[in-house]
């Protein structure tokens, strides 16, 4: 058997295995997807929101939290990271009007969200501590739908589902689809105690558990991934509440999107590097989350090389054949060019694609916001599947390169 055939089969096997884990997890837990738990008692909660130059969104963010129906929300701590716009003035105005709102400002700009969050943590005395981004808008009942999970004393964190706020162009629409699939996948991972990130737009932690982490790692570009791994490594469980919805703004241009994804990927690599000694140890972190991360990278990068190799070879061959055919005055395409006997690799590829497409549709069915069949036109799903997803592997390679060069800019 040729090396490429073996590589392709290995690739397909791993991809198929991961997809099968999701399919089975979904099949066995589909009735619990939307499950929320009634809190046994109202636990006090403080929400810390870092803010840097968010004058356009911070007021809406504060108001969204003030409108929350959760009775235990005691404090809304907004930490201004020395904004150069009018953000801090707006925060102070709200602090004056609402006693629950606390306006803070860091002594100097920390340069990243984790710095401002850590500054705000010092002021939290409640049983639960939550974090949000200044441009995120939680639904009125989002917090109520999350806190019930803390009835289980082993639960250290609960995360929400993020929807993209007003997607307009193809990039934001693709992100809207991506976020829904991520949320669906994350919920499934929750059934396996394998949630690997508690998102920035809205996540709540048990204060006792959070204190064990020593706060956010300010050297990590994805402090939300790092803190989740830290909690899981200490034996805490993480859950996700699908009905807890928070809307967030996403990058609208390729440039800002690319920058954000580089940061996320480099942060992911930093986290893997930090916890490398836990590989194949330490419960689900070392046994599944880390191998899952590594295999995802392996699949992405080998898939890219495989695709590039085959595509380049194919295009070059077709170009040369066309060039020589024109020069020799023979037909560019003949019946001999068509092979109606598909190889087993092709059949496996089609099977994988079909399963992947089915998974996407099921994920979309569970996330539809509008009345449409799956919430998005097929055109958008097609663009997402064909073009947007193809951007992942090159991003990963650039991220590895940047990580090796010591990239650590927010």
């Amino acid at each position, binding site marked *: *058997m*040729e090396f490429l*055939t073996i590589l392709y*089969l290995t690739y397909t*096997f791993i991809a*198929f*295995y991961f997809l*099968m*884990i999701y*399919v*089975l*997890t979904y099949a*066995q*837990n589909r009735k*619990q997807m939307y*499950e929320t*738990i009634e809190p046994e008692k109202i636990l006090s909660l403080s929400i810390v929101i870092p803010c840097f130059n968010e004058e356009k969104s911070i007021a809406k963010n504060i108001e969204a939290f003030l409108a929350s129906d959760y009775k235990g929300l005691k404090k809304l701590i907004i930490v201004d990271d020395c904004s150069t716009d009018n953000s801090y003035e707006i925060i102070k105005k709200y602090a004056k009007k609402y006693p629950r709102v606390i306006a803070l400002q860091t002594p100097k700009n920390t340069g990243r969200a984790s710095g401002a969050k850590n500054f705000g943590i010092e002021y939290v005395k409640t049983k639960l501590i939550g974090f949000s981004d200044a441009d995120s808008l939680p639904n009125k009942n989002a917090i109520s739908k999350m806190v019930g999970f803390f*009835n*289980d004393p082993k639960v250290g964190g609960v995360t929400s589902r993020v929807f993209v706020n007003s997607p307009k162009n193809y990039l934001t629409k693709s992100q809207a689809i991506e976020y829904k699939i991520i949320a669906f996948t994350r919920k499934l991972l*929750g*059934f*396996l*105690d394998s949630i690997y990130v508690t998102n920035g737009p809205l996540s709540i932690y048990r204060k006792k558990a959070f204190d064990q982490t020593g706060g956010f790692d300010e050297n990590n570009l994805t402090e939300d991934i790092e803190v989740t791994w830290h909690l899981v490594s200490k034996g805490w469980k993480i*859950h996700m509440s699908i009905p807890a919805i928070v809307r967030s703004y996403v990058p609208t241009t390729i440039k800002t999107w690319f920058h954000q994804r580089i940061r996320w990927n480099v942060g992911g690599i930093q986290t893997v590097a930090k916890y490398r000694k836990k590989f194949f140890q330490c419960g*689900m972190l070392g046994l*599944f989350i880390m191998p899952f991360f590594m295999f995802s990278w392996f699949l992405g990068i080998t898939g890219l090389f495989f695709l590039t190799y085959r595509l380049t*070879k194919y295009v*070059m*061959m077709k170009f*040369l*054949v066309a*060039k*020589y*055919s024109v*020069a*020799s*005055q*023979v*037909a560019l395409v*003949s019946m*001999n060019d068509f*092979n*109606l*006997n*598909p*190889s*087993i*690799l*092709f*059949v*496996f590829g089609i*099977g994988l694609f079909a399963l992947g497409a089915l998974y996407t549709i099921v994920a979309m069915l569970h996330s539809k916001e509008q009345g449409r069949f799956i919430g998005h036109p097929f055109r958008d799903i097609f663009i997402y599947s064909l073009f947007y997803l193809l951007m992942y592997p090159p991003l990963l390679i650039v991220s590895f390169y940047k990580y090796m060069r010591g990239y650590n800019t927010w």
Partner: protein
Amino acid sequence: MLKSKKHVFWEAFIITIVIFLAGIFLGMLVETNNSNKISNLYLQSEISFADTVASSGLIENSDFDCNIIKQNNIDFANRIYAEAKLLEEYEASGKLTEGMKLLHKKYDLLRTLVWTSNQKSLERCNNYNLIVYLYEYESEDIAKKATQNVWSKIILDVKTQNDNILLLPIAADQNLISLDLLIGKHNITHFPALIINNNKVLYDIENTATIEDLLN
């Protein structure tokens, strides 16, 4: 309350293995079936070849009609050409087994035998054209593969327009002693190469006219 269901890792693993093994088994079954199909065709072609060789042996007797021998040879060559096309298709889709490569070699040997057996017929009758197309089977050079692809199309065009052509495409890099001897006899230095009526060797074809000008 939510319960962890980690057994899913094993279940997924077992299901994936079962699906993979079933897929590979099915793939091997299809490839073996294709290989058997070609083997059966080859057996029939071997019989036809023996018949063709026997009829060509009668050429020394001048009473035999050259047209019949010509037609027999061309029909036989056309048949193994069609079989080779099918073999090529099966070969392209065969990823798990090596059987097709061996069959390809057998067909190359058969075509080499047809080439040698036609030497006398061609000399004696001289009423048809013998085109032997030698190409590299294992080449990884994209430019060479593209050239060979276009040559195949040119030669097929020529053959479609002329009834009296016996076309024999043979992979030159199959380590067949008889073929290597013939290649040496014609002083062929590189591939692809075209031998027309056992006396003209072409390493460069511009278009169909290049070949047509050299035909009888």
